[in-house]
């Protein structure tokens, strides 16, 4: 189930950027600052009842972005301890911090240094790939990337994944397939070559919006 609200713990330079980017995905995004006198604040004591009451944590996704690494880890641990099923996205400075946050129970870790380094290197080494992928991912072009769940496998009649010329028949490019057990395979990997298309497979496809819509109609629904 998709969460309705986003809670950002910590008020700093990252807050603004993250809020700007995710605001379209949620009904509301709340920012809580640490030990502030204002209304929207929290502390690192173990009393989460007020926060829970106010924001209904089971409908929320939490972003832990305190700049002090130790505090951030502590915050992650106490959130995980109180809310077992909460999705926690945490900000880490480096690899070491990322490992610790994963141990502390963060569902996802955003390593800042790593991210910046990756983007810089990609830009230098593969400028065209970077530009194209950026456009696809951040929706600045008509090209989209989508994940489509197969609900209509009879259509393919036990055919193998690679038997079908997706790009010519449907105008889309299938990059990889996610099996029912959650394992991801590149479309041309040895394993997926012998994989018969079946119910519940999720295709990761790239294509023009209209082509993707048509393809979805053909085989199932968009999977969120």
């Amino acid at each position: 189930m998709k969460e309705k609200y986003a809670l950002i713990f910590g008020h700093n330079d990252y807050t603004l950027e993250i809020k700007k980017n995710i605001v379209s995905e949620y009904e509301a995004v709340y920012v809580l600052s640490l030990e502030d006198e204002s209304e929207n604040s929290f502390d690192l004591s173990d009393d989460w009842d007020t926060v829970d009451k106010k924001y209904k944590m089971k409908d929320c996704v939490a972003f832990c972005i305190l700049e002090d690494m130790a505090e951030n880890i502590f915050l992650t641990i106490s959130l995980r301890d109180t809310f077992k099923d909460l999705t926690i996205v945490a900000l880490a400075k480096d690899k070491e911090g990322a490992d610790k946050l994963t141990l502390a129970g963060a569902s996802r870790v955003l390593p800042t240094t790593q991210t910046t380094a990756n983007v810089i290197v990609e830009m230098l080494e593969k400028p065209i790939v970077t530009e194209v992928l950026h456009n696809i991912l951040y929706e600045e072009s008509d090209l989209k990337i989508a994940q489509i769940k197969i609900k209509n496998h009879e259509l393919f009649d036990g055919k193998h994944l690679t038997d079908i010329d997706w790009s010519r028949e449907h105008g889309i490019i299938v990059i990889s397939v996610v099996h029912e057990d959650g394992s991801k395979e590149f479309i041309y990997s040895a394993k997926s070559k012998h994989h018969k298309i079946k119910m519940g497979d999720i295709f990761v496809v790239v294509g023009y919006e209209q082509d993707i819509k048509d393809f979805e109609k053909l085989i199932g629904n968009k999977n969120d």
Partner: protein
Amino acid sequence: MIKRLIVDFAYFINTSGKYQKKKHFFYDLLENNSYKYKKYFDIFMITLIFISVVIFIQEVKSEVDTRLLYFNNYIISFIFLVEYLLRLWISSSISKTIIEQSEHDFILGEKFRFFKAFKNILIIKFRYILSFKAIVDLLAIIPFFHQLRLLRIFILFRVFKLFRYAKSIQTFTSVIAAKKFEFFTLFIFASIIIFVSSVLIYVMEANHPDSSITTLFQAVYWSIVTISTVGYGDITPITQEGRVVSMFVIIAGIGVFSFTTSLIVTSFTEKLDEIKDLKLIDDISKIKEFYLICGYGTVAKEVAKKLSIHNKVIILDEDEEIVSRATKDGFIALNYDPGTTQSYHKLKINIKSQVKAILCLGKNDVENVYTALTIRSFNKDVFILSILKNKVNKNKLNFAGVNEIFYEKELVGIVAKEFVGKHVAFEAIHALRSSYNGIDVNEIRITQRIIKNYQKIADLDNKKYRIVLLGVYKTKEKQFFFNPIDDTLFENGDYLLVIGNTQFLKEFNVLLNKKN
């Protein structure tokens, strides 16, 4: 009239491309250490020197073939003579001196004073002739003129010529030269001891009937042998007084000996970093292409690590500690301030031809702006990218001429969006981007050669190599064509965007470039 001709000729020579080119070639060959053929010239000269010395040794006890002697006396000497003259030629420019004099006189409204120019030329040339290296060179030629036995010794001057060709000897002399004062003090100290002790031992021993020290020369010989802690024992004092003197000399000898050793060792350790740096700079000037990273922080470390997989990376930082950390991490790092033009001059980096891109990854925006401006001040074209720490400084970086700016917080924000959006799709792309599972996204540049083999999309064999062709980037139109139709024609400079197994991608690339 003649003066006029001389000045005209000087101008002609000075502006003649052919003449200057030739002179420059010989300069490179003889003096320019970074000229790639100088090495071979040096080896050739060193070989000649050794041949000469071997013949010299051979000659001491046995007869040597006259042809070899001829070779030694005439051919080698002749080659040395030619080298000497060339060096004399390139040491300074006669035409330039004449022109300077004539312009000087012209400005003052006087007649061109030829003799003054001639005098200046002589002074400059003689200054070169009287330099230590030139004297050694000249003496090395002398066997050419003299057949006298004693003068053969001059052949050994050819060995001194080695100083010119072997770099390590130059380094050694420069290290020793740095401690000139200390060595001089030591020399004076040792000389006084030798003088006093030899006089003393002579006075004590010379009149004793059994003593082997009978002349002052023997006394000096004894004291040098003793003070140097060699102590042959062929001459020993036999009187009580003489032995007391030798005890003092022995103790002084230990002092001199240890002082000398420690001097050489300390001067080497002091100079070691400098020598290493020079070697590094020399190596860097030979690298064809590299990324230059200015400032070494956490981001720089990650970037350097990733870039160094396929490229050469060089790091500059003004903090010595940070540089040593970068060196420990396995990178080529130099302790130079990236914010001064001087650093780049000292490093002998040719930004235009050697540097792929400059990355300003310093610890704050002030540093990065400064570095970018410094580089822009002498190079307008090189690609500069910089990270931005504080959003308000973005314009300053733009103004400093940075081509691409990365704002860390914004990047994190964008990545955060991925997590809340389409998980699976983003993860798939991420996996591709980071070559996870051996799958990689790559761009293949279309070259003339590829076009010869493959004219259009339909010709490609990508399915066979299990490669997904995402599209073509048309450089002319600056547009990406997703899933292009089979008839799309390739043009030189286009890029193919392909996804596939890293190994297969390599093979595919090889196949594309194969000669048909």
